[in-house]
């Protein structure tokens, strides 16, 4: 049975009397311990799907099931303990006036878990940050370090599912590599299921087993890793995305303009 089942999901925002259909009738399933990617350009609705799963975007049609059970509204603590999210911008996702310690111990306090001192130290260690960072503020950390803290926070409640919303797009290439490696290692150690959003096909390909290409809120094409590597896409849009991917630019087979 699939861990995440999204069936015919639609998300419609209403702003100033205008309706914006951010996601229209998208279905996907992710098995336990599988990694699934959503790729597309801005406005394709890929991030909105993640936000809809978390209850941060209004669902106007379809259903979301986690472990076979429809998600409750509001999501509640049981959901929080199973599903967590890492946001795109590490500069905006950490509370600027809370120390790292406070940020990491907050989920424990919410869920009434004890031993927060030891757990915070352990969590920092797990994401490769020195314990000395514990009482620093986010502004004292670099982008990559902040994203590590955000990952540590998402893992504090030991969830099964991690939703990753462009976790490395705000980072330098070398830092991106470090963060991707970290995510990779944590996935292996903890048996996590990833649902990852990115605009970068190469990153998605590196991290996930299957990819859904999205455009204007609709699913365009689902590709397995092999199909992507072999450039066996059937839709024009997926191909144009593939061709425009920065990764292809140094392909010796391809003539520079």
């Amino acid at each position, binding site marked *: 049975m699939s861990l995440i089942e999204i069936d015919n999901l639609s998300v419609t925002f209403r702003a100033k009397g205008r309706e914006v259909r951010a996601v229209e009738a998208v279905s996907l399933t992710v098995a336990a311990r599988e990694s699934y990617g959503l790729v597309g*350009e*801005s406005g394709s609705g890929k991030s909105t799907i993640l936000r809809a799963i978390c209850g941060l975007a209004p669902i106007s049609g379809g259903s979301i099931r986690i472990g076979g059970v429809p998600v409750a509204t509001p999501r509640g603590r049981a959901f929080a303990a199973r599903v967590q999210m890492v946001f795109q911008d590490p500069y905006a996702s950490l509370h600027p006036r809370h120390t790292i310690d406070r940020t990491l111990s907050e989920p424990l306090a919410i869920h009434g878990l004890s031993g927060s001192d030891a757990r915070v130290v352990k969590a920092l260690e797990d994401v490769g940050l020195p314990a000395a960072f514990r009482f620093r503020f986010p502004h004292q950390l670099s*982008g990559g370090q902040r994203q590590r803290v955000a990952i540590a926070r998402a893992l504090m409640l030991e969830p099964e599912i991690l939703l990753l919303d462009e976790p490395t797009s705000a980072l*330098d*290439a*070398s*830092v*991106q*590599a*470090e963060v*991707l*490696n970290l995510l*990779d*290692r944590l996935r292996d150690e903890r048996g996590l299921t990833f649902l990852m959003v990115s*605009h970068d*096909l*190469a*990153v998605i*390909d*590196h*991290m996930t087993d299957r990819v859904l290409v999205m455009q204007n809120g609709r699913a365009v094409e689902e590709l397995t*890793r092999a199909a*992507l*590597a*072999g450039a066996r896409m059937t839709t024009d849009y997926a191909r*144009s*995305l*593939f061709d*425009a*991917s*920065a*990764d*292809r*630019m*140094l392909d*010796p087979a391809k003539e*520079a*303009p």
Partner: protein
Amino acid sequence: MSPLLEVQNLRVTFDTETGPVEAVRGVSFSLGRERLGIVGESGSGKTMTGRAVLRLIRPPGRVEADRMVFDGQDLIAASEREMRALRGQRIGMVMQDPKYSLNPVMNVGAQLTEGLRLRDGFGRADARAKAIAALEAVQIRDPERVMEAYPHELSGGMGQRVMIAMMLIPEPDLLIADEPTSALDVTVQAEVLSILDALVRDRGMGLIFISHDLRLVARFCDRVLVMYKGRVVEEVEAKNLLAARHPYTQGLLNCLPRIGGSRAPLPGLDRTGAWTQEGTP
């Protein structure tokens, strides 16, 4: 032919409470009517280098150079008034995010024609015709509509094209583009790049293309400067980039994931090599 821009030992220093911080430490390059890429990670000083050429560094920042000459004119000795005459007219600059570079309360037409009418004394109709021609040059399909639009009504790609059009109206000899496509989607990015490319070729402009994306720069430029912590660590012909020898350049290339590549951990960037110490005071 003498180079369009020649920079020798450029230094940008910021005086902070804790002492001077050098953002650019001794960068030298020369540029003809070609496409020069400057690549580096955040904090490498690539943006500061671009701004320093236009002397757009605000205090407490200081710009110093042994030599910084644009088309025979000394940029270090130039007065602020002379610099103003150069900026926009002969050296254009395109920034990363058009949202912050366009005036939100003026429509595009007014912003495009303002300079033409005030500075060059064009009449209303002539200025408008020239602005529309510029918008057409950046492949905007319905320039009449875009002329009436306000910046918030434009998409990111459209806004960036308007910015480029605006910079191109005075027909500068040199265009400095600081991450002009980073805020754009990949397919739009390709279009904007080909527009820039055509303009460089057709008008014989010099271009400094600043980016964090090594692959993009390699494909798009003739020559690439790789910067690290305010220094140029390597200068290579773009077509030889894959054969770059410097460990930093190689590290930057290798740490990127590749479609269909191995699932093994990505090689990190080794920041402990002897080259990181090279020449540091």
